[in-house]
């Protein structure tokens, strides 16, 4: 590029320069649309369009520590300080799901989808799709808690469509969300909703590739900076800080990696299990996450029902309790039931009952209580019919599908689907269905009895007040007796719904018990005692059996994620305060065109990774103000086996007078650098943004044979490439800028934040048409 041309054409068209309300600490572009999600210092999430129109703002109430987009751009994953990862809908910011997979702050998130469509050849199954949608109407949703204004609960409330969309993962490509926390744990979840693995990098041992030494090393006090999953899901590069120490089981006294090995390390984890078993994992995750949704529906239904029923019962008792005091006041030694019975029998109307019915309850009161109780009963019935029963049925179906998968041992044992556990879970799902039916019967007869009782009561009141009682509904006196005997001061419905500590056995008719026992011979449930459990208890048991069954894939996969390689990058000051010191880093994977692999390489290796990072001043005083770029880390081990190393690195010296604020890898191995002028004081001065073509840089191959003694960068001391401002695409920015720099690879835009609360959006692909006057 000629110099004089460079003067005329200013790269990166400025789209706008707008003020922002508060300082931004995280910003990420949507991979599919021109949307920018930002997190402010006070932990609000803002979503802006490309024209800076704000779509929505939400504040989760907890400190946000990381953010990333789902690969299809329809959801945002947010990592919180307390270790929760929550998903938000892009449309309205509603919380879709939240999963507390970590115990400490989630500092980085990476959501990668399988770059390839599921292929049909190679014996891969792609034909097996989820049958559920074919056989069932859309799955039931969580019933609304009455009296709660929508929006208050926040969790899966109004967002029915998007919730549906999230659960129906069959149209999605296989994708995995990785999240890393401050304590060195990394969690993996399929579709961001089904946890499939958790590892802690403290537990890894790293064999040294040093010739002649057999020492293994561990990382101490590791904290994760960044995770990046390769596009084929086979590798995970982790940037973490920590202290590398020799595993002390070795009897050797030489401690090469003793002190001073605290620094930034790059780890390469082998996650090829995700690639190898992606079809299986996809199936399992799809069924299992749907099952978890449905158990959520059941749980919510149970609690809503319990709440509604106990409210209604409370009203009932509130109205009817005065009767017993009235009876005592009248000096009678009897109970309300007895008094009512004698009224029903027509023997006499005792004064307290008369007083109660005519004065304290009255016709209006009786009608009101009747409406409350019967209305609640009706609501409960509808919840069972529309939510509980369908959910239980679909759970049964999906469990059956999973059972089918678990029997295909050749395929699914590898992902930890265990047949006996799934079988057990299927049985529990079946028991729940029986329990739901029984509950429905109890509920319906209770409701019937209540309404019958109130019909009778109304008639009595009318008679006592000597008013005509023609238009009243008929009643059945026998049912009224049963009601007084069994329901007046007992509440079987609530007992069935409530989970109490005390093991309350439900009394079962002898006949039923015999039938259940007999059914065992017909292939019934082996556990004959299940009818003695309450509905809530049964649900609890079912849930724990599900948990047990799904824990198996989780632990199996976790065990299969192994550490392949470790690359110490540079040391960090070992004071604990600086562990949170942010080091601008960026990891990206590119289609490897230059390194055309030999033909026997499978498609998984056609990517090359680039790791770029700023080197802090303190770590290498002799090579200050540099940026390191390493590539080929992923292929390193394979190459080592072949006899040559492909791990290469280069140091970029930032031009004098500038220092790097943030950097980001852009497409086609380009790096976008954000530089501030060092000379001026804080808050003033200019900055610039530049793009450097990385693959043209003179990379130096790093030999691994002796590298562990030194930080990887020591080898590069001699070969620093100094950037010349004149030779690169540079755009000066008339503000002092701060991190973060948000670059969208797919959309070709970058957003820069100035220290004075401004946001500037540049189109990286277009040059400014003419020298703008605004400059």
């Amino acid at each position: 590029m000629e110099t004089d041309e460079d003067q005329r054409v200013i790269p990166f068209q400025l789209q706008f320069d707008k003020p922002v309300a508060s300082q931004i600490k995280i910003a990420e572009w949507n991979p599919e649309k021109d949307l920018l999600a930002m997190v402010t210092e006070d932990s609000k999430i803002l979503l802006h369009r490309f024209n800076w129109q704000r779509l929505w703002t939400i504040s989760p109430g907890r400190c946000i520590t990381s953010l990333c987009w789902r690969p299809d751009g329809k959801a945002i994953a947010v990592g919180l300080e307390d270790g929760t990862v929550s998903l938000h809908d892009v449309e309205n910011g509603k919380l879709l799901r939240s999963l507390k997979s970590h115990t400490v702050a989630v500092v980085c998130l990476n959501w990668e989808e399988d770059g390839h469509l599921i292929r049909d050849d190679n014996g891969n199954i792609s034909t097996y799709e989820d049958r559920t949608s074919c056989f069932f109407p859309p799955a039931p949703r969580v019933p609304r808690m009455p009296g709660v204004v929508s929006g208050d609960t926040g969790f899966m409330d109004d967002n029915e469509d998007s919730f549906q969309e999230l659960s129906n993962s069959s149209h999605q490509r296989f994708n995995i969300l990785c999240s890393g926390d401050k304590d060195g744990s990394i969690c993996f979840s399929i579709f961001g909703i089904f946890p499939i693995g958790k590892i802690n990098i403290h537990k890894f041992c790293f064999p040294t590739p040093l010739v002649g030494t057999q020492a293994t090393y561990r990382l101490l006090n590791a904290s994760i900076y960044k995770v990046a999953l390769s596009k084929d899901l086979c590798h995970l590069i982790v940037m973490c800080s920590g202290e590398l120490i020799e595993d002390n089981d070795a009897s050797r006294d030489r401690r090469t990696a003793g002190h001073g090995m605290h620094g930034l390390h790059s780890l390469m984890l082998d996650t090829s299990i995700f690639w190898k078993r992606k079809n299986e994992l996809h199936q399992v995750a799809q069924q299992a996450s749907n099952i978890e949704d449905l158990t959520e529906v059941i749980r919510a239904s149970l609690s809503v029902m319990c709440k509604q029923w106990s409210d209604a019962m409370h009203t009932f008792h509130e109205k009817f309790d005065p009767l017993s005091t009235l009876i005592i006041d009248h000096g009678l030694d009897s109970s309300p039931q007895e008094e009512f019975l004698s009224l029903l029998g027509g023997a006499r109307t005792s004064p307290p009952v008369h007083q109660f019915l005519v004065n304290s309850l009255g016709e209006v009161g009786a009608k009101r209580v009747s409406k409350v109780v019967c209305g609640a009963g009706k609501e409960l019935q509808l919840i069972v019919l529309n939510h509980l029963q369908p959910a239980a049925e679909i759970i049964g179906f999906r469990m059956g599908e999973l059972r089918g998968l678990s029997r295909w041992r050749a395929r699914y044992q590898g992902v930890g689907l265990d047949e006996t556990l799934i079988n057990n879970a299927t049985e529990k799902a079946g028991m729940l269905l029986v329990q739901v039916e029984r509950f429905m019967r109890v509920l319906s007869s209770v409701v019937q009895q209540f309404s019958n009782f109130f019909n009778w009561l109304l008639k009595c009141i009318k008679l006592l007040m000597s008013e005509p009682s023609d238009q009243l509904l008929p009643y059945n006196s026998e049912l009224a007796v049963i009601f007084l005997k069994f329901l007046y001061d007992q509440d079987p419905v609530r007992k069935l719904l409530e989970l109490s500590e005390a093991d309350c056995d439900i009394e079962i008719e002898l006949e039923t018990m015999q039938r259940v026992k007999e059914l065992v011979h017909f292939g019934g449930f082996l556990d004959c005692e299940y009818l003695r459990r309450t509905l809530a208890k049964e649900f609890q048991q079912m849930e724990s059996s599900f948990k047990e069954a799904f824990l198996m894939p989780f632990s199996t996969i976790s065990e299969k994620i192994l550490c392949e390689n470790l690359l110490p990058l540079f040391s960090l000051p070992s004071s604990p305060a600086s562990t949170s010191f942010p080091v601008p880093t960026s990891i990206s994977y590119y289609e490897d065109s230059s390194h055309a692999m030999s033909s026997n390489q499978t498609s998984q290796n056609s990517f090359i990774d680039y790791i770029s990072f700023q080197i802090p001043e303190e770590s290498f005083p002799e090579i200050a103000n540099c940026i390191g770029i390493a590539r080929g880390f992923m292929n390193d081990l394979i190459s080592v086996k072949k006899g040559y190393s492909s791990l290469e690195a280069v140091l970029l010296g930032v031009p004098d007078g500038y220092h790097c604020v943030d950097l980001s890898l852009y497409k086609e191995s380009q790096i976008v650098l954000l530089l501030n002028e060092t000379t001026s004081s804080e808050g003033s001065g200019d900055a610039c943004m530049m793009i450097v073509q990385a693959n043209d840089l003179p990379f130096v191959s790093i030999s691994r044979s002796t590298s562990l003694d030194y930080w990887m960068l020591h080898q590069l001391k001699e070969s620093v490439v100094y950037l010349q401002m004149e030779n690169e695409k540079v755009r000066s920015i008339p503000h002092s800028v701060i991190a973060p720099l948000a670059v969208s690879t797919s959309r070709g835009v970058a957003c820069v934040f100035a220290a004075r609360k401004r946001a500037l959006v540049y189109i990286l692909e277009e040059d400014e048409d003419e020298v703008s006057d605004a400059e």
Partner: protein
Amino acid sequence: MDLENFVFKKVTEEIEARKRASERVSFHLHAPKALFDLVEDIEAPADPKSKHSDKVGETSPYVHPPNYALKEFEPNSGIFLRTNWQIQGYLQEQADALEKNGSSFSLNAFELILRQLHKLAPELHRVHFLRYLNSLCHDDYFAALENLHRYFDYSAGTEGIDFVPPASGSNSFGRYEIALLFLGMMHFQFGHPKQALEVLTEAVRVSQQLSNDTCLAYTLAAICNLLSEIGVSNTAGILGSSFSPLTSIGISLSVQQQLFVLLRGSLKRAESLKLKRLVASNHLAMAKFDLTHVQRPLVSFGPKASMKLRTCPTNVCKELRLSSHLISEFGFESSTMTTDGAFSTAWLKNLQKPLGSAILSQENGSGSNENAFQFCVQPSSIPGSVLQLIGSSYLLRATAWELYGSAPLARINALVYATCFTDASSSSDAALAYVKLIQHLAVFRGYKEAFAALKIAEEKFLSVSKSRILILKLQLLHERALHRGHLKLAQQVCDELGVLASSVTGVDMELKTEASLRHARTLLAANQYSEAAAVAHSLFCMCYKFNLQVENATVLLLLAEVHKRSGNAVLGLPYALASLSFCQSFNLDLLKASATLTLAELWLSLGSNHAKRALSLIQGALPMILGHGGLELRARAYIAEAKCYLSDPSFSVSENSEVVLDPLSQASVELQVLEYHELAAETFYLMATVFHKLGQLEEREEAANSFKKHMMALKNPLDDEDPLFNVL
């Protein structure tokens, strides 16, 4: 039958309601003349209080378990004073018992009582109805017809109650339309679809004339029931011009479409009349219809017209769920108040229990926890007919899942029925649930357990002619005989199954197709290919004629199987493909998986260069087969998979023998449970060859021995240890 009693109950309830409305109850004493002096006719006001006090005193003799009643009604066992009310209650309960126990109800004993009753109280016309029901249950056509006629002749359908306020509208014909409805249903019960349809059509006409909407709704439901049960040949045109409600719609509708229109109409009518139970049963009928029929839009043009020619399982599910809404709605039905005294039996039973003494004593407080569930032990106050309908929705679910292919759900739904509904349901429905469970056992756990369960079931449901248990037994025997290679026995059982079906065309279609399907399979097992193909062909023609699409898929698959066995794989392919497409459009996923398996086997037999294709076909179907297929299907899939690997020239046994040995050993385990000698022998043969290639001689010998054992068993079937052989 269900519907019949259901209507009967309906009518009774109407009458009860009317009785209640008139605020008085007549206590007529039906006692021998000799005792007449002792008592007087009492007309008691139906005051709730007095009524109750009456009851507490005298409910005990009111209703008895049937065997009790038999004793009580012996002519010379003492003095009996029975109120009209009591007799009505007794008859009501007997009607319920008749429905519940079906043909196991003793015909003669009950007939004797009824005759006695009739002699003592000739004005109690309901006795005739009970006699009708009794003879209906015992398949006595002439007696049933006679009693039905007598009932309507005497009472004009107005029961044996002394006063009947004239129903609104003209009542000059009595209740002619109801009589027709009953007659139609009786004909249907006896398997005379033509007469039934004629009578019911007449009932529709009369109901319309008299604007008796309720009766019309029930009649329409009965016609739907009839049409969906009997096989109506496409060409016969039974409905033709004689059926007025339909001819007005159009002429070109097929029988199925007519049925659909009828169902919709009936549902709408029932909904508008707020007949909740009828609505539920209509939903069930709709679900049944949707299960096996492709909904073709009557108008199909334009860009939005769906070209999807498939059944719609979600509709089935929706209809089933709608039908279960009955449980929350039955209380709102116009007249469902349970009759007073309905609970007294159970109630008294409970009083005898020790806890009964604590009814009213308030010493709870600590024991309140236990007491709360005493309510659950109480007889449910939900009317039996409601429970019956809800229960049948579970049965239908189980059937649907058998077709759609979800073994766990089919089993669970049958279990829900068997656990929760057997007390309220008729014995034939309960038997059906148990039959399903036993079939499930046989398919998934082998014959040993199935026959053990069958034995219990046989005792439980005393088998009579045409009972499902008997059919099930024959089915199981046939399957096992085929697997063991007892072809003579298989043929014998198969013939016996065929005999059970009625000879009238269009009746018992299910049984007829099953019998001839089994016949074809037996022939196939005997390697009589052309005969088997001929039987299958004629079966296909019959299924086609009667629109039995689901069965068609099975028959086509059988034809493919015949060609596969006879070595004409190329001829078999089109049949397998046709079966596949049938399965697809009817969502028969399990059958589809097994058709896919057959297809793969056909490809494999065309040569080793098709092994890859066959393998991918099998692997595509494996999740379905392993999850929902029975032992036989699973074993076949395993064997086919292993064969695919073995015949693939690029596959080397020594490198990954696991891939082959693992499925083979699983197949061998499953086939031994099933005692399927032929396939087991094949499995062991394959295993032996694999071990041979691997050089593991010991294992090879073991497999070879097993092979030999199974071949011997196949050659000389031993029937000495067969306990059921002599049952036939």
